[in-house]
């Protein structure tokens, strides 16, 4: 019964926060397919880097706020352990996204946010997009992309209207084998832009880093 209660409370909280309909602009770039050789080559480059760390700045735009909310921190991408966003400003906390879902870590301890299928789809998308793993993405998203030399942009547009409404559009941009920009865009006034600095020198994560920033 206790697990059911957890799920039930989680569902209630998620329902309270359910989004109203949002729009998504026409994505830039051309449609691409999972087997596209140019993107496969990029993907192979990304997959070779099993541990990447970089600083990032996140700008959150809300419809009811005149200026964005700025957050700063370190992003870590592990081929094995998923994605970790360690925010250091304005508050210290970490968001871990892996195959088991999302985990929030702060000074108060670890917590799992309320289960939300759409959020789960978004997290999965982010994990695959950071590796340019287009096969699984194509099942749920329309894929659009553009490349100019080493600079590339991949845009994911949910195929399902419901998901499109709640998740909006995901854009991942990069240069060579480095992801430099992530945008989660629901509308012009509701979006999150993450600007990633050039990666730190390549080095595997230490045991301490894995313990602190992943699960």
């Amino acid at each position, binding site marked *: 019964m*206790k*697990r059911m209660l957890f799920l039930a409370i989680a569902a209630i909280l*998620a329902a309270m926060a359910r989004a109203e309909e949002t729009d998504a602009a026409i994505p830039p770039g051309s449609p691409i397919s999972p087997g596209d050789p140019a993107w496969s080559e990029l993907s192979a480059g990304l997959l070779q880097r099993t541990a990447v760390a970089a600083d990032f700045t996140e700008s959150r735009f809300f419809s009811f706020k005149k200026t964005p909310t700025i957050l700063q921190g370190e992003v870590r991408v592990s081929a094995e352990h998923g994605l970790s966003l360690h925010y250091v400003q304005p508050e210290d906390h970490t968001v871990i996204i892996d195959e088991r879902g999302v985990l929030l870590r702060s000074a108060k301890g670890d917590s799992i946010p309320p289960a939300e299928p759409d959020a789960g789809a978004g997290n999965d998308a982010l994990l695959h997009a950071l590796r340019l793993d287009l096969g699984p993405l194509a099942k749920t998203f329309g894929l659009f992309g553009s490349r100019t030399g080493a600079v590339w942009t991949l845009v994911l547009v949910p195929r399902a209207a419901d998901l499109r409404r709640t998740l909006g559009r995901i854009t991942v941009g990069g240069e060579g084998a480095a992801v430099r920009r992530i945008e989660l865009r629901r509308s012009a006034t509701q979006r999150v832009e993450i600007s990633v600095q050039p990666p730190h020198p390549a080095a595997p994560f230490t045991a301490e880093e894995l313990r602190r920033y992943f699960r």
Partner: protein
Amino acid sequence: MTTRKRRKWLGASVLGAAALLGAGWLAWIDLPRRISTDVLDLLPTGERSPELGMMRSLASESEARVMLFVLTDGAGQPAPQGAAGRFAAELARQPDFAGARALDEAAPFDALGRRLFELRFTLLFPSWLRERAAAYAATGGDQDHFADWLAGDAAARLNRFLGTPEALPYQDALPADPLLLAPGLIERTQKGLALLQSPVSSAIAAPTRVWAQIAVSPLRDEGQQPVFAAIEKALASTRRVYPGVSIAYTGVNRFAAVSRARIRGELGWLNILSIAAVLAVALIFIRRTRRALHLAPPVLLAVLGAWVCTTAVFERVHILVFVVGSLLTGVAVDYGFYLYMQAPGSPGEDYWDKVRRLKKPLLSSCFTTVAGFALLLLSELPLIRQLGLFVAAGLLCALAGAIVYFSILDDAFLEARAFSGFRGGAPATRRKVRVVLITLWFATLPGLLLVRWKDDIRDMEIPSPSVEREDARIRALFGGASVQTVYLTHGRSLSEARDALDRFETWLLAAGGGARFANLGAIIPTEAEHAEALRFVRQHPEFPARLRLALAASGFDADGFEPFFTAYSSFAAHASGADLDAAVRSLRSSLAGPLSLLLHAGQPQSWFVTLASHAPAETPPAATQTVSADELQSLNRIFGRYRQSALQISLAGLAIVGAGVLITYGFRDGARIFSIPCGAALGLFGLFGWLGHPLNLFHVLGAFLGVCLTHNYSIFSVSSAYRREPPPVSVRLSALCAAGSFGVLALSAIPVVHALGETVAMMVLTALLAIEFEHFAAIADKK
């Protein structure tokens, strides 16, 4: 017609009429409906303790009706969620089910979430205001500036919130909730959510689960087989769309059904074995066994009378009364043995002269035993009351039946076989054995100090390991396996219960040990908090304007929060003290599935359920109006109380029996007579103490029954001792019959029946040994 013939005709008519009336009564009442296998029927309906009343209500009304299902596909993997939805819908359509839902089905919970959001000002705003007021009080600010501070604080908190991970999924609701009432709820319930979460929740291949509640008590007939049939029907319908789906399920009714079947089975074979044991003893002792069949009618009349009286007085009678009471035969046959096997006092002695001759031992043994059992009617435990009436009524019928029945026989004397050397050897040998027995008896007495009591209500049921294993497996998949404590906080009204919940939470936090808990206290404010919120909105009409200014100053577009300001002004204009109760009832009606168990609003008790981990070992103080809802623990504690009650009543009954004997036989002889039942009981309990054998309520009842039986043997034997005769063969026969039939009970798989059987059988054998080895020789010598 001669006088003798007239008496016979009259006796036969009386017995025939009584048998017809009794059988007619049992045929007229709906007997199967009147017999209960519900363990809760063993507890009193008008229980003095509210905790038990509440427990009973909770057990029978809500929790006990819950059934848990796990669906798998043909490969044994979790079935698709669609199958769970379909199965739940099919179950809900069945009249035997009050409701069912697939666990991960979002729609009902979404509706509840929307409802809670609609009611946020009534339910969440008061708690929010109390917290903020406490924070303001900590700054030392005065009340005149509270609204200003509150507006600035709200804007600052909103700004900070936007930098948290929770802000993004909640952003669409923020224009209607800049005070963060709903996220505040998340924060308040954070520890509780972590507590409720099981490791399974983050697993990738989560099991497919359905939660359901049946419409009737799982402990009744209609809550078992019809429900299982409805489940099969729903499954068949689901398989039409999802072939290969199979289910595993658990629920109280599964345990109850298995237990009922096994108890019924036991009832059958125990009775057969009991009769076989009595017949075997009779065959050994009685020369003309065909004539021994005359012992049966008084016993049958006794059982019939017991059934009739018990069903006439009690609306529902627990089946254990019949299981245990069926051994009334062992006691009832005593009067037959004694009357039928007493040789005529003189050649051609008239039957009624014989009755007059034997009336003293017959009446004193019967009435003292009946008085003892009648005292059980004062018990607060229904089973004990029912058993008391069953045996007392049965014994009266047995005596009356035996006296009348043997009057219609031409020859009311059944001769026993003669056993040479039956007295156990030479007098010197018997003396030695007697010394050994007395020494052993003294040796057992210190064991009384080692007696351990263990009252476990599970002893009322036959253990079903396979069902228990399946239950544990399924409950683990539902996250029910973690070690937690469930508390019930109750009150005569919802408001009183909510106030008590506040006191309980304070105690829980103060008790230390890092207790974490979850309940609806985070959602439902106290009446005082609600009243304070109403006072605030009336005394501070300027608050919305101040908030607008504060939001603008913090970089927000204040117009973006128009949904909030509209809702707030409506709340401020229309809110009243009655809203809280209405909102809680509205929320309660929206609580679906397992959440519905967290709150009960009704008469005579309302209560909140709190789930806690690392809870203190101590019992919550009375002022918290909270009890641990560990049903087993509570029921065991209450059973322990009943055992003490039964012990007191039994001792009082014993005193009555003893007083009767002392009055009838004088102090010296009476004490000697009474020392047999008392000595047997003390010696046996002492032996149990030495052996470390834990005792329970039914050992006490068994000892009481044993005292009454052995007291009969004692009285019948002393009558022979007065005549310098050995103990009558009827005593041996009766004691061995009782030992055989109660010994059969000791074979029962039901622990309490086993306890009763072993206690009585051992007491009877002990008393027989004492009698055989000339306990009453001293009386005979004096005469």
